[in-house]
């Protein structure tokens, strides 16, 4: 955690701040979703409350908080209340493990009459060496929230929705895990930060043992693993239970699926969990395939030097660099969040057998093939043939 009280408390505050960041993004995403759907369907969307309908979120929040507290008569009360909380946790824990920007170097300074040594603060909740396995493991726990909600609310539609959801999540987790293996083979690491650090500069790779570079492309994972990126994107759509894979809450068949009986703030927590999952999925896509927080062709050191040459101190320059890179990360994430919205309002829903066929008979074989071919190519390219 840290060596002295200041470092420990800042590291702790960071985790809380990242959780709040995730929660605060949700109203914004709801606004994007509603305005975006209106744009796609050629209507106006919410536009009365505030400029462009932006304060609609505030009105929504007040409405959610003042709703009646409702519990079905024959439900399991504890499970019914536990499910929304469980829905919130995995996304928050997983999002904390993803690096959001470059680490901040703080020079030694004097404060309150004592020396505070030089620090390095990572721009993420906590650094775990095997970040990817951790995120996969934690996000697989999200199935419990759906099961608890479905079984706890004692409603046949809820139960059917929950069973569909968990079967779907287990099925697509396989394809998701296998589609990542290719990128792991290329970057040779489980750690997010190392993976991001390898994606700077122009596109560079080993071609039969010789280092080759293509100047006009950034060094992003998508150019090594296009198939893996597509498979991962499709799998995270299924993992987040969004259209076109939102069978668990298919309103024409199941009313509202596992959250049929939920209302008010509890319903809202399910929403936060779902958008949190979208956020984690977008962050994973960006980190694996689109260079993480890096701006193409510009290294963090160059930005840092620019700020130093503008007359900033080393600490301020480092902080500003981190902020600039953080904005770059969020710009990339927002593109993916927009894709989530865009797809939702464009594609129709799958049938359940189509969903399972796609998962087991199409995506799994392609992901396996991608893994094997990547392994062979990596082995061939790394060994010199002279």
């Amino acid at each position, binding site marked *: 955690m840290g060596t002295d009280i200041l470092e420990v408390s800042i590291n702790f505050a960071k985790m809380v701040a990242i959780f709040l960041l995730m929660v605060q993004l949700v109203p914004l995403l709801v606004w994007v979703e509603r305005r975006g759907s209106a744009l796609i369907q050629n209507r106006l969307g919410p536009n009365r409350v505030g400029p462009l309908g932006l304060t609609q979120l505030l009105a929504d929040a007040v409405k959610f908080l003042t709703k009646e507290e409702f519990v079905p008569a024959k439900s399991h009360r504890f499970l019914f209340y536990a499910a929304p909380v469980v829905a919130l946790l995995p996304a928050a824990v997983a999002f904390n493990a993803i690096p959001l920007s470059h680490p901040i170097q703080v020079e030694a300074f004097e404060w309150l009459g004592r020396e505070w040594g030089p620090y390095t603060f990572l721009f993420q909740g906590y650094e775990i060496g*095997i970040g990817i*396995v*951790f995120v996969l493991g934690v996000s697989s726990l999200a199935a419990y929230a759906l099961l608890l909600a479905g079984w706890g609310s004692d409603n046949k539609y809820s139960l059917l929705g929950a069973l569909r959801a*968990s079967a779907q999540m*287990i099925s697509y987790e396989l394809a998701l*895990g296998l589609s990542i293996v290719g990128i792991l083979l290329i970057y040779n690491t489980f750690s997010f930060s190392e993976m991001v650090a390898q994606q700077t500069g122009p596109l560079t790779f080993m071609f039969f043992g010789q280092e080759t570079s293509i100047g006009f492309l950034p060094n992003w994972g998508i150019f090594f693993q296009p198939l893996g990126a597509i498979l991962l994107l499709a799998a995270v759509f299924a993992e987040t239970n969004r259209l076109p894979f939102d069978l668990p809450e298919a309103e024409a068949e199941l009313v509202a699926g596992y959250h049929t009986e939920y209302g008010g703030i509890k319903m809202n927590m399910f929403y936060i969990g779902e958008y949190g999952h979208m956020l984690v999925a977008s962050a994973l896509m960006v980190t694996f395939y689109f260079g993480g927080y890096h701006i193409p062709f510009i290294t963090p050191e160059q930005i840092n030097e620019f700020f130093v040459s503008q007359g900033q101190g080393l600490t301020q320059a480092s902080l500003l660099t981190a902020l600039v890179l953080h904005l770059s990360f969020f710009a990339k994430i927002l593109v993916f969040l927009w894709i989530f919205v865009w797809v939702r309002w464009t594609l129709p829903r799958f049938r359940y057998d189509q969903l399972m066929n796609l998962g087991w008979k199409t995506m799994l074989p392609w992901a396996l093939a991608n893994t094997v071919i990547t392994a062979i190519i990596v082995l061939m390219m790394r060994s010199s043939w002279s």
Partner: protein
Amino acid sequence: MDLSSLMFYLLAFMAVFFGYFTIAVANPIFSALNLALTMITLAGIFFLLDAYFIAGVQLAVYAGAVMVLFVMVLMLFDLSGEVRAFSRGLMSGIVKVGSALLVMLLILLSVLGYYGERLEIGAPPSTAEVVQPTTQDLAILLFSRYLFAFELLGLLLLVVAVGVVAVSRIKGGTHARD
């Protein structure tokens, strides 16, 4: 008491607590949920022991897949018919619990006896100078020395997959009453 031992005692207490309720709760669904919580706390203990990869796999495979499967199957069944959760008979119960406690006692005695001599209980062994192996070492070992066992496991999984499909598609079976 430092942070890691505090974490260990907290996690150990939680593991025993949830483990107890796994076998003590009458409703099998609550049993399964408690077991899932036990596995999550065990993953935390694996993290403390620097076995990061095993901890992640424990979360993804045990807590995320196997236990979800259990919970799903239990939710599919109608459990209202099940009244007696435990086997009946006071004497046999005492014998069963007693034999289990005897096993625990034997394990504890062997552990404390063996390590009491070698390590002097209470003084944790210094592991600072020992280099802890990484995930890469695990993979290298798995794909070199234990390759045969690894392939055998793949075969086992294949057989199990075929067997499960065969069992679940079965039509007649034992006692066919038609």
